[in-house]
């Protein structure tokens, strides 16, 4: 058989006749091989990059197109099969006058956040929209169920489809109205639904080399690289191999300057499965046939250092010489007298959580290009300025010689804070002088990038007879993997939040981040707080039950209130909406309590339960300076430009910044032009993380607007109360008298702007002293959610029927986006509670690693609480992470309410819950 295989290969190489493809009614002639995936052909040969590739395995549906009117994954269709068929992609939608309305419905109703799944969603919806029938919501779900979304929680997508099918008119486009508090249409929404937005993999230059990394199959091993020249010669199309010796600058990177412990390429020793040891640069045509298994390397596997106990084992290998005990960092928050202050009633618990994967639908991607002695990097990122500094560090060039151009970002959630493709492709482009593109496969995206920290928590909470909390003791160990990443952030943030949003006079909270050779753990929506909330909310229920108090009332009794001090001694003078959040849920809670008891009467197999979860969350970095600078400029023609370095990762910061800018200047939103992210043109706005952009960059925008108005008043000698109206080519200042400032008369800068001001805002925090006293955060968000679940006791299967969510966001700058963040956060929290667990190597794809689908999201009732934070821009705080934190605790508490058994390990899979129920019955 081998012989015939060979002759066939040579035959195959000969025939490459062109194939006719009909896409969106247009004929194309394509010369790619017959077995090429249609998705690839559409994107690479035809330049139709609106079709996205999320997994190349039919698991995510991002690449959905219509063939002969039917939705299929274009990553699973060969070019030969598609030839001659009518193919429709997102680029063709607007030509269909009916489906144009579907796109508009998506934009207006908030169905697109990051937008990476949107083309697939639209195509799946287009299939059903063409069938002339009345669709029930369940039928819509059945048709849409093959496309995954990680941002929206699906609700607004189904709403948009239903609204479109109903034929009802959309609310009037809100592009002009820019006031804070209004539902301004997502400013970059149209580019998402038209497939025009350029994500990391969408702008690769034609002459680019493609980069593939050689990665370790072992979690822990020494290695020696063999004859690389021979490998290059044996592989036509391979231009060059990069190994450690080729790195021009330092072979290290990391989020923190003093924790740069991750090598770009491992130097003789790998510390996790998937670590890169070399990079192969090849021509595009050679990618498909490149077999990295033939790369010359000899492995000497070492015993893995696995799990928290594995890392702490005194006999375990030391992973970094600087950390002899394999402890990366420790955190603590100790205050008050734990012994003397102890309450009469005490509840303890142990809890365990696993790795959680961000599973954004856009794998890491971008390209790098050398321009003279400068490096330009187009990349999907949450942190352009940190990327700039990190790339400069590995290239050994000044930071100002690196330019980062953020692409549209197809989801972040913390996973695109660390660099991924940046260092290797920059080195490749630097050394070869050719553009170098690097697109992670789904496997790389899952195996190589940081995850949520697995945790092991022990905690004890006490209260007095009056129900008032007295003490809280907490210790959490986190598996941080082999490199620092955001491990120090997690270890430091968690002790400050671990007692929950309650008044507790004495606390003793400690954490450790333990180094292992498992997957790297880093930043993920909430930085360890979601794990800690599972513990404090379980104990709150435990104490309430001991006292025979209602679980919601027990929380209200202990909620932080304005005037209370936190464990760090910070007085919370205002904008503390914890109690309001709980109180707004009270009527539904009491009603559901009765309904659940009624349902459970005589129902042995299906048991319902309700559970509440609360959280608080400090906005921005912990005690660290984390400023943002935003610039607003006005051209001679009156054109207003906001130069924003705050990256929109789908959370909608572009729209929020435009709204604040418009409101602060008193103009309509469509007057604001956005220049985004480019580190040559915008200032450092800091990371899009820690729920900080609305609060911090929002403040910077408001300050810039104020400064701009001040300088206009100065130029016109107008008083501070004068009204400023921005016109075309002039600004009208009406105070004691009316003055018109002719913008054309002012000198312009290189970009044609005549007025320009920078707003700089750094939240007023302080370092914590040796007793952890100080102001770690300038602002806190609060939230309560409660879940109604139904547990099939026989199968251990939990169905979440409804979630009520009350969030103190300070001020909802854009209610549609706030709702979207809450719905999306709840979806991720539900995943954390019930189905998501990343097991290194075993689950590095989207069919073994399960994230919620269309059919898993319950009805969500949202209550937005506005407490107007005096420090927040227009009173706003943040919502990104707070949305997720209370969900898993609420669901776990509801499962306990339903079954009488306390799940202490997430995810609560059917198998695990069945075992738990069985064990409890046995005892």
């Amino acid at each position: 058989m081998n012989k015939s295989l060979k002759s066939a290969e040579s035959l195959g190489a000969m025939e490459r006749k062109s194939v006719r493809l009909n896409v969106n009614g247009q004929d194309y002639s394509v010369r790619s091989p017959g077995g090429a995936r249609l998705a690839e052909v559409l994107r690479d040969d035809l330049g139709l990059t609106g079709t996205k590739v999320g997994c190349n395995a039919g698991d995510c549906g991002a690449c959905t197109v219509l063939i002969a009117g039917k939705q299929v994954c274009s990553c699973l269709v060969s070019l030969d099969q598609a030839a001659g068929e009518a193919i429709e992609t997102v680029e063709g939608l607007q030509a269909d006058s009916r489906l144009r309305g579907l796109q508009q419905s998506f934009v207006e109703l908030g169905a697109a956040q990051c937008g990476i799944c949107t083309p697939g969603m639209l195509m799946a919806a287009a299939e059903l929209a063409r069938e002339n029938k009345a669709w029930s919501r369940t039928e819509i779900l059945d048709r849409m169920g093959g496309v995954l979304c990680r941002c929206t929680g699906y609700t607004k997508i189904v709403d948009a489809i239903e609204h479109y099918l109903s034929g009802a008119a959309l609310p009037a486009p809100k592009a002009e109205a820019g006031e804070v508090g209004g539902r301004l249409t997502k400013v970059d929404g149209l580019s998402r639904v038209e497939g025009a937005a350029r994500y990391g993999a969408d702008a690769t230059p034609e002459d680019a080399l493609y980069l593939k990394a050689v990665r370790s199959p072992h979690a822990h091993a020494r290695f020696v690289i063999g004859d690389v020249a021979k490998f290059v010669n044996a592989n036509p199309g391979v231009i060059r191999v990069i190994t450690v010796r080729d790195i021009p600058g330092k072979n290290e990177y990391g989020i923190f300057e003093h924790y740069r412990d991750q090598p770009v390429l491992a130097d003789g020793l790998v510390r996790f499965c998937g670590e890169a040891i070399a990079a192969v640069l090849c021509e595009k045509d050679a990618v498909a046939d490149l077999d990295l298994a033939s790369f010359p390397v000899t492995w000497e596997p070492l015993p893995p250092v696995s799990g928290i106990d594995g890392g702490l084992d005194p006999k375990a290998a030391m992973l970094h010489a600087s950390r002899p005990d394999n402890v990366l960092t420790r955190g603590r928050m100790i205050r008050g007298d734990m012994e003397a202050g102890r309450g009469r009633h005490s509840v303890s618990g142990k809890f365990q959580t696993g790795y959680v994967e961000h599973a954004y639908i856009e794998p890491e991607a971008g390209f790098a290009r050398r321009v003279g002695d400068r490096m330009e990097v187009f990349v999907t990122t949450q942190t352009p300025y940190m990327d700039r500094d990190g790339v400069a560090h590995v290239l050994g060039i000044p930071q100002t010689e690196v330019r980062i151009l953020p692409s549209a970002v197809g989801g972040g959630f913390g996973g695109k804070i660390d660099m991924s493709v940046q260092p290797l492709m920059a080195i490749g482009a630097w050394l070869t002088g050719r553009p170098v593109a690097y697109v992670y496969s789904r496997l790389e995206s899952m195996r190589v990038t940081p995850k949520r920290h697995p945790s092991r928590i022990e905690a004890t909470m006490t209260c007095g007879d009056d129900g008032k909390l007295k003490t809280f003791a907490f210790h959490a160990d986190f598996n941080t993997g082999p490199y620092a990443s955001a491990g120090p952030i997690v270890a430091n943030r968690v002790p400050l939040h671990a007692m929950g949003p309650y008044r507790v006079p004495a606390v003793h909270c400690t954490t450790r981040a333990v180094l292992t050779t498992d997957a790297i753990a880093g930043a993920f929506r909430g930085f360890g707080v979601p794990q800690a909330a599972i513990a404090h909310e379980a104990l709150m229920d435990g104490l309430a039950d001991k006292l025979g108090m209602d679980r919601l009332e027990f929380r209200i009794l202990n909620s932080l209130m304005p005037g209370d001090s936190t464990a760090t001694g910070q007085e919370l003078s205002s904008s503390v909406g914890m109690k309001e959040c709980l109180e707004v849920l009270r009527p539904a809670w009491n009603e559901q309590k009765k309904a659940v008891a009624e349902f459970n009467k005589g129902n042995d197999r299906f048991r319902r339960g309700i559970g509440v979860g609360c959280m608080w969350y400090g906005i921005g970095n912990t005690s660290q300076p984390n400023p943002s600078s935003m610039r607003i400029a006005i051209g001679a023609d009156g054109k207003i430009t906001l130069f924003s370095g705050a990256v929109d990762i789908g959370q909608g910061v572009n729209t929020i910044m435009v709204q604040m800018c418009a409101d602060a200047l008193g103009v309509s939103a469509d007057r604001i032009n956005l220049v985004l992210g480019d580190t040559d043109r915008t200032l450092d706005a800091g990371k899009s993380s820690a729920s900080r952009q609305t609060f911090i960059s929002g403040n910077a925008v408001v300050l810039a607007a104020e400064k701009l108005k001040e300088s206009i008043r100065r130029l016109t000698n107008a008083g501070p109360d004068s009204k400023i109206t921005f016109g075309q080519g002039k600004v009208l200042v009406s105070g004691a008298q009316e003055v018109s400032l002719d913008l054309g008369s002012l000198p312009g800068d290189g970009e044609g702007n005549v007025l320009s001001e920078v707003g700089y805002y750094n939240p007023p925090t302080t370092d914590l002293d040796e007793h952890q006293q100080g102001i770690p955060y300038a602002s806190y968000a609060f939230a309560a959610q409660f879940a109604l679940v139904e547990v099939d006791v026989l199968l251990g299967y939990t169905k979440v029927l409804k979630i009520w969510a009350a969030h103190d966001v300070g001020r909802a700058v854009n209610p549609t986006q706030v709702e979207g963040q809450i719905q999306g956060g709840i979806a991720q929290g539900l995943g954390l509670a019930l189905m998501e667990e990343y097991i290194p190597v075993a689950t590095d794809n989207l069919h073994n690693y399960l994230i919620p689908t269309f059919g898993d999201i319950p009805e969500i009732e949202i209550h937005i609480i506005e407490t107007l934070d005096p420090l927040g821009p227009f009173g706003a705080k943040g919502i990104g992470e707070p949305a997720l934190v209370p969900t898993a605790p609420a669901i776990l508490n509801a499962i306990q309410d339903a079954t009488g058994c306390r799940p202490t390990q997430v995810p609560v899979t059917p198998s695990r819950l069945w075992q738990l129920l069985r064990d409890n019955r046995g005892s």
Partner: protein
Amino acid sequence: MDYRRAENLEDAVRLRREMGYPFVAGGTDIYPAIENGARFPGLIDVSKVEALRGKIRREHDAWIIPALATWSEVVAADLPPQFDALKQAAAEVGGRQIQNAGTVAGNICNASPAADGIPALMSLGAGIVIAGSSGEREIPLEEFVLGNRKTALQEGELLRAVKVPVRAARCASAFRKLGARRYLVISIVMAAATLECDAGGRITYAGISVGACAARALRLAAWEQALLGRSIADLHALEVAPAYLAPLSPMDDIRGSGAYRVHAAGVLVREALAKAAVRLNEQVS
């Protein structure tokens, strides 16, 4: 990769014999395998082979499901209640995209222990029509799927069609799939049950098959046996004897423990039987 398109059945068989490449039709297993690192020197595309296509149809005493029938076609086909389980399974295969592309033959030949389509067909007593260079042969589905990714196909053979015996008028079936999420999910366990009864409501045929509980889907013969001659009205009275589930040998894996799977299989079979019985009752009355 040498991508060959077979023009007809003979072509497909010849290419297979000469090249030894895997077949591709819906592509829903081959392309993910390639993404996962599998390297094939070539593929034989059979998606345009007329002899493998066509409508799901009745021929004499059997229903013929052509190899390339997709799961959406199964759902849309006008079929008697004996096919309810298959239709329910078809609607649970991947998402709509996979149902539109994935084929019945591909699902069977890929021979995953968690193949969604196999238990329903097995409970119906389906047979497999195999085409090869020396003509056609037919074997029961139970003998076709030999183990995890193993089938009885010999060199140069392919699955031409699935043949399902036409059951008596009073026949119904049902399918239950258990996964950790609603869509796009690989089963933890699944079960299909087919029941046929006489005019008096006595069971004359019982087919029970469980998937994802062994290297391949299995029939639970002892349970089937215990049902024969019983009245569908008192199905629920039958206790599940441990021996019924004895053939199952599930592993512990990321989706669930072996012990859980055996337990869940018992529950799912009972539910599938009850669901089928309800359908039967509708027909009898």
